[in-house]
Structures are given as structure tokens and as C-alpha cells.
């Protein structure tokens, strides 16, 4: 079987985000960009399924500008077999992204699609569920364990109550949570090898996808900052302060 993995280029998770003073967005010039951390986990899971003999091919897909090829190269260096770059300079929202993935699934017929549970730029957490809806496929979001068994997958999900297990027929869409696995380190020879792996570039119109009416961002603002507090020297001072505020008895 084939596995498709969605990989998004995002501002690195260590970057301290700065809102532009004119409210037009956040500063991305000269800022370190990376593979969305959840997508790294998604790729790793796909590779492990392949290495266990349960899949033949792992295809990494990104939607975005030319620079996103960097993240595809990372996915290829980790071990993905090939990559598809859906090139566009527009910001693509989850519903359109899901439609694009649907078109790719119609073409590639994967048995499994793995996404990150959320892209850490927009924090939407929608694309996996939307693809599953459009394809009428099962979804297993926030996965912390995936066990493939012939035509079904047993997926453990991190939910607010604890851990939930679903059994789903394949094809299915899974979204990866943090504890699904620990992604491998990419070694230099793998980076060299990845340079020779194929990246197909297609446009949204090549795929016959209509861009959905999206949400319009009117402005971007910095969040209210918490007031810097005070340092106390002793537990007694702390207790007095909390009692004064009525927070402890």
C-alpha cells in the first residue's frame, strides 16, 4: 500500500513570534522556517509502517510556495520515496488543502494518509478531518499509536478524558499527536541521497481543484501581555500574598 503524508513549512517552533506593527501579520522575513513538528512525526510513522513491511511507498506532499521544497527534501532525507509539490503563492486554508489532498488521493489511491494534528502556525487542526469528510473515509485524529492489520488500523487517540481506541477500515486519515513516535535524525548521506529523489510539481488548477471561499484575516494583533510579577524570597511571603488575594485559605 501507499501512504501519503502532508508536510507543511512553518515558522520554527523555537522562534519568538513578532507581530508587525501595522497589524498585517507576523514577521517572517529572516525567520527560521522548519517542517511542522507534527508532520515530522507523521513522516516518521509512515516510514515505520513501511519498514515493518506493511507499506511499499511513502509520498510526501506539500502545498505552498517554491521554498517549501526545502521541507520536502527533509521528508525525502528522512526516507520518503518521492514527493509532490503543489505549488502556489497563495496562503492555502484547510478546506482547500483538504480538497487538494482529495484530488491527490483520487489519483494515487493511498491506503493511509497521515497528517500532523495541527500546523503550529495557524493552529487550525482541521485538514485531516476535512479530508476524511470529503473522501467519506474514517478519521483517527490525535493518534499516539497506530497498528496496521491488513485492511484495518487500530488507532489510540489522545483525548481529554485519556486514551481512546478506534478501529477503522482502510483507507483512512490519521493525524499525529506528539507521543506517536520520536522522529529520526537525518544523516548527511541521506541528505545527499534525497537530492536524487523525485519531486513532482503540480498546480492547483492541474488538479482541477476549486479554491474554497476562505476566512478573511482583517488584522493581526499582539496578545495582551501578562504583567511581570514579583519575586518572593520565602514560602511565608508566598503564603501571605496568596492569602491576601483570597486564593488559599
Amino acid at each position: 500500500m501507499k501512504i501519503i503524508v502532508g508536510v507543511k513549512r512553518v515558522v520554527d517552533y523555537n522562534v519568538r513570534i513578532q507581530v508587525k506593527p501595522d497589524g498585517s501579520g507576523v514577521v517572517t522575513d529572516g525567520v527560521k522556517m522548519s517542517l511542522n513538528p507534527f508532520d515530522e512525526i507523521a513522516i516518521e510513522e509512515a516510514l515505520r509502517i513501511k519498514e515493518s513491511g506493511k507499506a511499499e511507498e511513502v509520498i510526501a506532499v506539500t502545498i505552498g510556495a517554491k521554498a517549501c521544497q526545502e521541507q520536502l527534501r527533509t521528508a525525502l532525507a528522512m526516507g520518503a520515496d518521492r514527493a509532490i509539490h503543489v505549488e502556489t503563492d497563495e496562503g492555502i486554508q484547510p478546506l482547500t488543502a483538504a480538497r487538494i489532498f482529495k484530488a491527490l488521493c483520487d489519483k494515487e489511491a493511498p491506503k493511509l494518509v497521515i497528517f500532523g494534528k495541527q500546523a503550529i502556525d495557524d493552529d487550525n487542526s482541521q485538514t485531516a478531518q476535512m479530508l476524511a469528510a470529503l473522501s467519506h473515509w474514517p478519521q483517527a485524529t490525535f493518534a499516539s499509536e497506530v497498528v496496521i492489520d491488513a485492511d484495518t488500523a487500530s488507532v489510540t487517540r489522545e483525548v481529554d478524558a485519556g486514551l481512546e481506541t478506534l478501529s477503522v477500515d482502510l483507507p483512512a486519515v490519521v493525524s499525529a499527536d506528539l507521543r506517536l513516535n520520536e522522529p529520526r535524525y537525518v544523516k548527511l548521506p541521506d541528505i545527499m541521497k534525497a537530492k536524487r529523489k523525485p519531486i513532482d510539481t503540480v498546480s492547483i488548477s492541474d488538479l482541477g481543484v476549486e479554491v474554497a471561499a476562505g476566512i478573511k484575516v482583517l488584522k493581526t494583533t499582539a496578545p495582551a501581555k501578562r504583567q511581570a510579577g514579583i519575586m518572593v524570597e520565602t514560602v511565608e511571603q508566598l503564603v501571605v500574598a496568596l492569602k491576601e488575594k483570597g486564593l488559599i485559605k
Partner: protein
Amino acid sequence: MNKVLVIAEHDGSNLNGSTARAISCAKDIQAESIDIVVLAADGSSVAEQAAALAGVNKVLLVQNPANEHPVAAFLAPQIESLATDYTHVLAPSTTFGKDLMPRIAAHLGVPQISDIMRVESATIFDRPVYAGNAIITVEAPAGIIVGTVRTASYPVAENGGSASIENREVSVELPSHTRFVSVSTGGGEERPDLQAAATVVSGGRGVGSEENFKVIYGLADKLGAAVGASRAAVDVGFIPNDHQVGQTGKIIAPDLYMAFGISGAIQHLAGIKDAGTIVAVNKDADAPIFEVADFGLVGDLFQVIEDLEKALA
């Protein structure tokens, strides 16, 4: 005129408090009516709790054995068939709502607005991005508005309502491709719920071991508090995943949040921005958590907790 439908989150017997927070958000839309839909196998007691929330006009009760557990693939088609009577469909931004709502939005062909933290108008909303380090004001396009509500931004709607309860038959074909197997909780149900508690005592990697976490539980019990944790503490197995606080865990707004041995990574802080008072105890005076703490104390967490227990005795 606007009509809002809120999806009830529940466990079969109790309405989850996050639903009452979503109702508070719905009220800001200034709708003509706010209805709640309870999808359950046997939902009469949940429906009664929903009907008691002030501001709710009607409770729709959809009973079906397939609704015993909240499986998005089963719930979504049922809700879609009701949604067309409404201008807005909302659910709390919990794992329940996050899993379910995009499936509904996609079928309706509309985008979803995730984590609504403020209603500017019936079509304009504020929501956090980049782990809450920026807030965007967004306008929804024409069509039904599907959204999830950032529960930490809204108070629990009060009781005192007496909405009518209407049984609804929904005849849509449900898929057979998904089977619920089991759910297991991390235990500790005897303690207050992390998302509802007024006080939360949290431990990080600095606590050192699962065994050591007993001191965190001990202090929490003394304060009647819920127990939280950083991702690092969960990852190394000190405490189950349902205690994780942060961007990718639970976003909480207790009156008092006490962080022990947590450095204060931005992903963790994203979960506690709305806490009333933050207390941080860390042996490293340069730990970033002190930049947001109302009261910081540099010291060994075990010593501090011991002294606190004495002071509270």
C-alpha cells in the same frame, strides 16, 4: 436573524462544563435563539442539564445507539442534517469539538473558525495563532459559520434556564468503517477536573520521577486543586497524557496556577495565559516561567512544597 446550534459534549450522564462555556460565546453573537443538540444513546439526563443552562431556547435530543460514544464519523452526518436550520454551529474547542467540527464544516463546504476567543460581530471573530503569540481577527465568508470555542476565554453559562426538550429523529445512513473500541482514563477522577478547577498544581520535568509526582498530588489534594503537567513530564511517563497543559494539551484558566519544576516554554505558556494568578517555583532564577509569573520563588520544589504543606496545615 442569527440562530446558533451548540453541540453538547458529554459522557452519557454528565454534560461537560465546556458546553456551558460555548453557550457564553454563543450569547455574544446576539442570536435570536440558541439551541443545544445532545446526541446520545440515552441522553435524557444530559438533555435536562442542557435545558437548565440560562439562555438556551431549545434542546434537541437525538438518541441513537450509535451515539453511545462520541465518534465524529457518526455524529457529523447527523449534525449536518440539523445544521441547515442555523446560521452558526459551535462546539467547545476540546478534543471532542476539534475532532468533530471540521468534518461537519467540510461537508457543508464552509471553512471552520477554530478557537474563537472573542465575538466581534456575528461574522467577525478573534482567534489565537502561533500558540497564542498573535491574535487574528477574521471574517467568515457567506454561509453557515462553523466554529470551535476556546473554552478558557469564556465563563460557564449559569443555570436557571428551562428550555424545552425536543426529541428528534435523524434518518441519515451512518458509516460502518469506524468502530469504537475503548476509552481509558488516566485515573485520578476523584480530583477536580483540570479544565474546570479553580486551582491547578502542575509539575514538570523538574519533579524528576513518577514517584516524586506524589508531592504534586499531595499539595493538590491539600488545596482541592486539579493536577497539571508539562509535556516533558508526560513524555517521560511521570503522569498520564490527559494532564498535559499547553498549546497541544489543555488550555486552562484557573484562578490560581502553581508551576513546579516547569521551565516555561512558549508551548506550555500558551495553555495558562488566562490563569488569574501564576505562581512559579524553579531552582533556576533565569527560567522563562518567571517572566509571566505573578509570584516567583527560586528554590528547590521539594523543599518549597514541604514548607507550603506546613504553612497550610
